[in-house]
């Protein structure tokens, strides 16, 4: 120990950490005492030995022993013996820990007199515990785990903050946990670099105070590393411990997470992007784990099964790698704390949210479907959707409001959550593409028929909330305005994109889940993208002609697209629409040329508007599709699509009109533009100049709307990704109980 004391010099910084850690599980007064004792005896800083001493004191305090110099002395003098005597297993473990620590780099200078003794004890205890799987990297990495584990134990005791908690509880559980404790994660970053001690923490997974420590013992025996790591680890662990109210061996600490994020950045600068499989493979191969294990880690961490790793997935994978290197067995299932966070990057909150969202989504699911059948006016539907989203919002803290700001908020959220979203590009919408968001954007913009869904998804996150009608309408419009060729079968109308779609993944997921429950959703999801393109091109011309007003044009445009989607419902809608259009404008035959031009102009605004809608639809569709695909892997219910398209169409018609206005409201700029548009049409037929002016205006509006559309599609994509991952999680949670 003494020899290590010199080494501890450099651990002044640890003192802070340690103190923090210690504070966590020891009341302040006790901690102060400990500090005093340690500090007094030691060099005035929390060297490793100090740390050990402190730990012991903590244990002592926890075990209810009076924290006195005497105890400290005893600890120092007979750390091992005392522990051993009083609590055989625990102490031995504890001592083992210490001894291991001592061995390694532990510099219990003066504090831990019998390091060898401890070591022996530890060894024995280790052997007892031998179950601990730790074996692997016993060299440098293990040390950190050791300390880490040790700390874990302490923290657990500390968490109780009771004197009696003591190391005892830790130790005991550890020994028990040992046998099975593969979870104790002693992630040592040995493979990755000689991370500074801080990094060691990072690598620490939360090991349950109990098992982890025990497991650590065996590992610690051999390791070497370092007091620093140990200390840091402990500190980290302790800190972590305190934050985590439950024993989660797989929890990622903040430091660890930071490290992971940095590593992610080295591979993929865009935090919201993906790491392609090949790059990830190279990276993780560096860790020198066997391919089989890496393969398993990949299976666990590639949550959306897209062959690429988002930031969260990457962190989870990295965490697992570290854990494995530290000797922890890989779990069979992805631990909850490692699940990709759909909403945000916070571990704990995320998990809860996700579960909450999942549970919650069902309720919103019902809301939208119910609304669509009723065919409320656009205004009604939108508010209703908002309502549902708001319900879902309850789960997620992010409020949902039907306002333009919401869209922005959603977008912001999207950016925040970012990486977890998978891009559902596959036709099945099960496997999101690896495209980075940029790609998604572009794809969404292009709106290729094949990937209509994906395209839609990527762009209109914000609108995903409003699933069916809007979504379908939007998608269709988007496709129309976009370059995608007509899609094939008219997909069921996606749920109307909910304007109030909040970014919170919970909301989205809720919506998506709500969509999922109905098989209709599946049908709807798959189809919406297809529908838009088709109806738009064909229908667009017709209605446009009839529409003197841009807004009308928009409406007709959207209506046409919906029509295309479902054959029959389209007819119904179309007829309605036609009636509307006809009534709206009676200039069908009057100005062919002008109508054409009008149509053009109308198309533009309508395109932009539709793009908005499409974005929404896409978002919803995306949500639905991924949800549907995973949920109803097998087939889609044909029933769902037909009613949806009808609803959608009707809604879209209504929506188009009010939406045109609403959209503009949502986006101030757009609103202004759109507002100007209606006025334009009136004069079109009359004056060519007016027409040209309107054309110009429409173009401007179009660009604005296109921009908005792309944004929305981006959001949609994100939301869909979230949805997909949530669904995947849901499926994973549901043990293949269904075919």
């Amino acid at each position, binding site marked *: 120990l003494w020899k290590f004391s010199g080494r501890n010099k450099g651990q002044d910084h640890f003192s802070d950490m340690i103190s923090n850690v210690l504070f966590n599980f020891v009341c302040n007064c006790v901690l102060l005492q400990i500090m005093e004792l340690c500090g007094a005896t030691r060099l005035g800083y929390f060297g490793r030995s100090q740390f050990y001493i402190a730990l012991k004191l903590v244990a002592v305090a926890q075990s209810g022993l009076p924290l006195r110099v005497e105890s400290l002395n005893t600890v120092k003098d007979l750390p091992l013996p005392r522990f051993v005597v009083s609590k055989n297993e625990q102490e031995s473990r504890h001592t083992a820990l210490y001894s291991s620590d001592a061995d390694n780099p532990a510099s219990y200078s003066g504090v831990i007199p019998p390091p060898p003794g401890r070591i022996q004890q530890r060894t024995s205890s280790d052997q007892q515990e031998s179950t601990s799987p730790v074996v692997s990297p016993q060299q440098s990495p293990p040390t950190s785990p050791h300390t880490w584990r040790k700390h874990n134990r302490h923290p657990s005791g500390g968490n109780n903050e009771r004197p009696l908690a003591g190391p005892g509880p830790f130790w005991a559980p550890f020994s028990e946990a040992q046998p099975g404790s593969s979870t104790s994660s002693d992630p040592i970053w040995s493979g990755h670099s000689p991370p500074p001690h801080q990094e060691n923490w990072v690598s620490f997974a939360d090991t349950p105070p109990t098992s982890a420590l025990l497991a650590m013992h065996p590992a610690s025996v051999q390791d070497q590393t370092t007091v620093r790591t140990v200390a840091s680890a402990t500190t980290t662990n302790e800190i972590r411990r305190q934050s985590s109210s439950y024993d989660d061996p797989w929890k990622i600490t903040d430091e660890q997470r930071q490290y992971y994020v940095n590593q992610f950045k080295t591979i993929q600068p865009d935090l919201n992007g993906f790491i392609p499989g090949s790059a990830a493979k190279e990276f993780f191969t560096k860790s020198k784990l066997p391919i089989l294990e890496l*393969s398993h880690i990949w299976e666990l961490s*590639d949550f959306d099964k897209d062959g690429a790793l988002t930031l969260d997935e990457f962190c989870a994978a990295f965490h697992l790698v570290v854990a494995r290197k530290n000797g922890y067995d890989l779990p069979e299932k992805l631990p909850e704390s490692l699940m990709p966070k759909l909403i945000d990057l916070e571990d704990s909150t995320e998990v809860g949210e996700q579960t909450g969202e999942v549970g919650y989504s069902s309720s919103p699911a019902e809301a939208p479907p119910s609304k669509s059948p009723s065919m409320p006016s656009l205004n009604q539907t939108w508010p209703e959707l908002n309502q549902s989203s708001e319900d879902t919002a309850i789960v997620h803290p992010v409020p949902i409001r039907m306002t333009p700001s919401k869209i922005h908020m959603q977008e912001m959220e999207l950016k925040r959550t970012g990486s977890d979203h998978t891009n559902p590009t596959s036709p099945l919408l099960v496997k999101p593409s690896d495209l980075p968001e940029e790609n998604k954007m572009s794809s969404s913009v292009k709106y290729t028929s094949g990937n209509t869904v994906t395209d839609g998804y990527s762009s209109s996150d914000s609108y995903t909330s409003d699933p069916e009608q809007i979504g379908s309408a939007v998608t269709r419009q988007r496709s129309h305005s976009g370059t995608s060729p007509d899609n094939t079968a008219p997909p069921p109308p996606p749920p109307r994109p909910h304007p109030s779609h909040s970014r919170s993944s919970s909301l989205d997921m809720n919506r998506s889940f709500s969509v999922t429950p109905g098989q209709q959703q599946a049908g709807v999801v798959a189809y919406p993208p297809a529908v838009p393109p088709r109806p738009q091109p064909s229908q667009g011309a017709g209605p446009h002609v009839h529409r003197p007003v841009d807004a009308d044009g928009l409406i007709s445009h959207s209506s046409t697209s919906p029509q295309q989607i479902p054959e029959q419902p389209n007819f119904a809608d179309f007829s309605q629409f036609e009636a509307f259009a006809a009534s709206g404008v009676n200039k069908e035959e009057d100005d062919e040329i002008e109508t054409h031009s009008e149509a053009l102009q109308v198309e533009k605004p309508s395109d932009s508007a539709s793009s908005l809608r499409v974005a929404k639809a896409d978002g919803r569709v995306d949500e639905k599709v991924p949800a549907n695909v995973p949920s109803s892997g097998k087939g889609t219910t044909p029933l769902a699509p037909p009613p949806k398209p009808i609803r959608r169409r009707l809604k879209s018609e209504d929506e188009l009109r009010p939406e045109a206005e609403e959209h503009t409201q949502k986006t101030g700029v757009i609103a202004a533009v759109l507002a100007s548009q209606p006025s334009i049409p009136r004069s079109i037929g009359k004056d060519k100049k007016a027409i040209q002016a309107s054309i110009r205006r429409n173009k401007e509006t179009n660009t604005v709307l296109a921009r908005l559309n792309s944004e929305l599609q981006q959001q949609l994509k994100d939301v869909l990704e979230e949805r997909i991952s949530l669904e995947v999680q849901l499926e994973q949670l549901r043990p293949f109980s269904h075919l």
Partner: protein
Amino acid sequence: METGLFSGSVHIGIIYHPPQNYPLYIRSVPTENELKFHYTVHTSLDVVDEKISAMGKAMVDQRELYLGLLYPTEDYKVYGYVTNSKVKFVMVVDSSNTALRDNEIRSMFRKLHNSYTDIMCNPFYNPGDRIHSRAFDNMVNSMMMQVC
């Protein structure tokens, strides 16, 4: 499905087609007579190949439901499924599992295919390797438990 010991025997094999037809994965439930099932799977490959070549232009016929090889004594059925990449899935089911309907078989194959695709997504998996994925194993086990 029966619940007897030997009643519901299902045997699933995944054969990697492209160059050679060697099995990537074989699992049986229950595990008795496994060798016989291996043999059955292998011999059924010929029939599968026959069907593939027969399809000619319809190159992509996912749902190749092969009902045949009713072995006289054993009376089991062999189902086949071919993916676009010529990976064959063969399932041998005991005829005592009379409740196994065609749809169920199809859905099982679909699940198998999905899981196989997931495996393919894993960059650490080299096509042609034996499949050791635990997730895949779990899926197959659960699926077979369902039918047994």
